């Protein structure tokens, strides 16, 4: 089914126009990398605080309020630029094993972050030892997920 989708996309006028434009893929990849930079820096700021690696920083609740809206914005930009990259090179992405590993991991990161955000803002996890522990576990898991996602993304070029 993925093969048929890929073949169909490849033959659409949009895909052919994008594939025929030399600068399009590197330019969109640049935007994609800059958005990854934003996601990683914003999540790292929050995660480092939740894991107790930075103590001078503001409270987890305030950090969640400053970092997470930016995170969701950058994630939306990643989905948009990623979709454009798939349109420009459907076969390179959709049929790629590294791409197929990467996408479920991205979905998992989004779910974990949503869970963490709700826990911090609605259930005030930072006020109880159990909540703080859970937030720390989620922060460590998302940090590992980020490493795996970036690695899978880079390996699309080699898989």
């Amino acid at each position, binding site marked *: 089914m993925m093969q048929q989708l890929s073949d169909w996309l490849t033959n659409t006028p949009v895909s052919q126009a994008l594939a025929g434009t030399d600068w399009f893929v590197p330019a969109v990849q*640049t935007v994609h990398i800059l958005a990854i*930079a934003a996601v*990683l820096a*914003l999540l*790292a*700021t929050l995660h480092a605080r939740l894991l107790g690696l930075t103590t001078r920083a*503001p409270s987890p609740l305030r950090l969640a309020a400053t970092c997470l809206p930016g995170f969701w914005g950058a994630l939306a930009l990643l989905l948009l630029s990623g979709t454009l990259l798939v349109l420009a090179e459907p076969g390179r992405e959709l049929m790629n094993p590294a791409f197929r590993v990467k996408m479920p991991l991205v979905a998992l990161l989004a779910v974990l972050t949503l869970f963490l955000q709700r826990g911090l803002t609605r259930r005030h996890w930072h006020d109880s030892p159990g909540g703080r522990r859970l937030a720390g576990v989620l922060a460590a898991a998302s940090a590992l997920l980020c490493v795996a996602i970036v*690695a899978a993304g880079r390996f699309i070029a080699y898989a």
Partner: protein
Amino acid sequence: MSIPGLMHVIEAQRYSMAIARSPWMFPALETVHVFALTLVVGSVGLIDLRLLGLSFRDRSVRELCASVLPWTWGAFAVAGSCGALLFSSKATLYYTNLPFRLKMLGLLLAALNMLVFHAITARNLHRWDQGVPPLAARLAGGISLTLWIAIVAAGRWIGFTT
């Protein structure tokens, strides 16, 4: 020795040849390089946006720098070491590559911008630490953000021209 001669010597080192011949070392180093550089650019970007008065306005510049910059330098050391190893594997090719040269120029300019900021602009930091930074500091933030975007773009273009 001439610079092209030096590039040949770098390429002929045992570690350079090992990276060039291995099927997995170059992609693996590149993955670590990309991960580290996104942390560098992202963390520098947090400070640049604060200097521009666009985000983290409730945090003092000094406190933000103190909590972010150690991570930036750690990530920069990793990105730089991996970058140097990637360079060694195809030194001659990269040395003559225009996007590579532009990227190095961008890094140099970013370093100069940072030095000017710390040596001159930040001398009266105590006066605007909590508030909106003065024009010179906002300029430093804007220049830094622009340069880092250009550095990422030039870096990405290396892969399409070599």
